[in-house]
């Protein structure tokens, strides 16, 4: 069986949506962060397979993915740091707690 591009794109879209769903429903900030990772990874898959299947001549997608992974890692690190900071103050990692600033 030939594995077509679509077989990659659909799961990646599903993965993206799962991340989205998780991000929108989870209250725990760590869980939200994980969901965000899912979304970013879905994007990475997209870039990779598109490069592989459609434009095999160049490496743009691949390299983009590499950078995206690095950026995602940085984002996570920073987010975790802020969450820890917040946790120190409120002793919670619940996003619903963080809504004092509003209006």
């Amino acid at each position: 069986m030939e594995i077509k591009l679509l077989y990659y794109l659909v799961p990646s879209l599903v993965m993206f949506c799962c991340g989205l769903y998780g991000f929108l429903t989870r209250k725990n900030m760590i869980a939200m962060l994980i969901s965000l990772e899912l979304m970013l990874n879905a994007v990475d898959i997209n870039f990779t397979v598109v490069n592989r299947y459609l434009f095999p001549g160049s490496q743009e997608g691949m390299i983009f993915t590499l950078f995206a992974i690095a950026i995602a890692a940085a984002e996570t690190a920073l987010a975790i740091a802020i969450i820890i900071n917040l946790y120190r103050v409120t002793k919670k990692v619940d996003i619903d707690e963080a809504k004092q600033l509003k209006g």
Partner: protein
Amino acid sequence: MEPTIPILILCLPLLGFLVLGLLGPKMSHKAAGWYGILSMGATMVLAYITACTYFFSGAPEFIEGGVRLQHVVFNQDWLNFYKELTIRIGFLLDPISALLLVVITTISFCVHLYSLGYMEGEKGFQRYYAFLQLFSFSMLGLVVATNIFQMYIFWELVGASSYLLIGFYYQRPSAVSASKKAFIVTRFADLGFLIGILILSYFTGTFNFTDFTGTVLANGSSVNDLVTPLNVVASFGGATFMGCSLLTWALVLIFMGGMGKSAMLPLHIWLPDAMEGPTPVSALIHAATMVVAGVYLVARLFPLYLMEEAALTFITVVGAITAFYAAVVACTQIDIKRVLAFSTISQIAFMMVSLGVARPEIHEGLGYMASMFHLFTHAMFKALLFLGAGALIHAVHSNDYTAMGGLRKYMPVTHITFLIGCLAIAGIPPFSGFFSKDEILSACYENSFVWGAWMSMVAGLTAFYMFRLYYLIFWWDEPDYGHHKPHDAPWMMSLPLIFLALVSCCCGFLHFGKFVTWNGEPYDIHINWTGVAIPSIIIAVLAIALATVMYRKKNDLPAKFAKASCGLWTAAHNRFYWDEIYLFITHKIIFNGICRPIAWFDRHIIDGTMDGLAWCAQRLSVTIRPLQSGNVHSYVYVYLFGALLLGGVTAAVVLL
């Protein structure tokens, strides 16, 4: 004619006004009074010189082939609108303006002199003289106007000076409201005048009287390419509005201005109230000069009115009704000045009717001449009556005849002169009123018997109410005067009385027709004794006799009469409720029905809309506030749906 004297005639009173107005507070009463008198006296002399030159010099610019001409002494551009449409300030000399010059300056001088005594010691004496000077200036400017807009300008100015003089006792609320009423009512009339001018000037392209009336000028041409009345009619090109020709509309509207100033029904209501002013002012403004401005206006435009039968008929009808109405009301008034005021309205209506019935084809426009004649004589005897009334009021400190009675013993000079005035107005020969009124009645009869009979009846009423007044003041019953018995006025008050009485006695014999006619050609007055004069004398005598019976001695006949009249007397006493009607219209309808709703509308609807917009923005701001809930989830929802919607809608719009 050199323009020096005419310019001085206008400038002296103006200067007087400025000097007295600006420097007055620094002057003593005497100085101010004498300055005013001398200024007016000089003006009078100059006016006489001018009039005499016009009438008697026989210079070719004034008279040609026995026909008196209109002569423009000077005409200075004042404000140009477009093309030929220019307001000019000028000096037009023709029979009626010369006549009015004489009348105005004479009466004004008398009043100036008289006021020195009458107003003695009043606060604001200088102001009073300043206003008198202003009025004289305006009135002179009005009569010598060379164009209708100049007339309008001075028309407004006399209105304003009348306002100032009526409200002279400004701390008296009644005087304030009377002056306000006078101004507003005449202003309303002037609105018509203005619109009339707009219509007329638009179609004819000129303001000049000489162009409208087309009276042939020296060397047989008119100024503006022979714009004669016929051309005026032609220039309208038969334009009509609501069934009448536009020219009729214009003339009727212009006449409306005259109705206001001359207190014709229904715009008469201000004149009786105007008696709140000092009595000499009433004599000058509200009897002799300003109130005849309406008559003068019609006379000025008479050749134009002749072109429109309808307008003349309108004038006649209004005049006839007013004459009768005012005469009836005059029979029932208590305030002697109001009696005189209504009598004035009635007499001016006589002049109006006379103009209205005048037709050149009958008797060479007798009505016109008669009207002007009556204007002249009436000015004299009515001023006399008013000044006499002033002397009486000065003596008893009351306006009501109830406070008078039997005064003939105490005030002989006043009595005699007043009587002469009464006889003159009643139309008893040989006093002046007889002659002029007789001419008017003849003109009426020649036009139609109905008008003649009607006006004869009014003439009878006139005799009745005047002698009612006379008897009630000088005979009837003597009230308790206390130990300050009334006495004759000082000389400067008596002198004008005597002078005016003399004039009233004699001026009827003037060959008026030789001087003033509608087309400048002399007209020979001949009294139609059998047809008109004798009957009218009989009517007058009968009316006087009736008055004598009723009012010579104190009796209860008048009271019975009033009771028997089934409310007619009360109605007449209340002037047929015209004031109440006006009050209703102005207060209830205009004030409460228009002004207040508009003010409310402005504050609540217009302003409310603007405030409402601001309120809406605030509300909207509150409403969308939950969007900013502070919850990251909701932010992300909005973000996501925003992005999807943006893509979706745009895709849909672009692809579909």
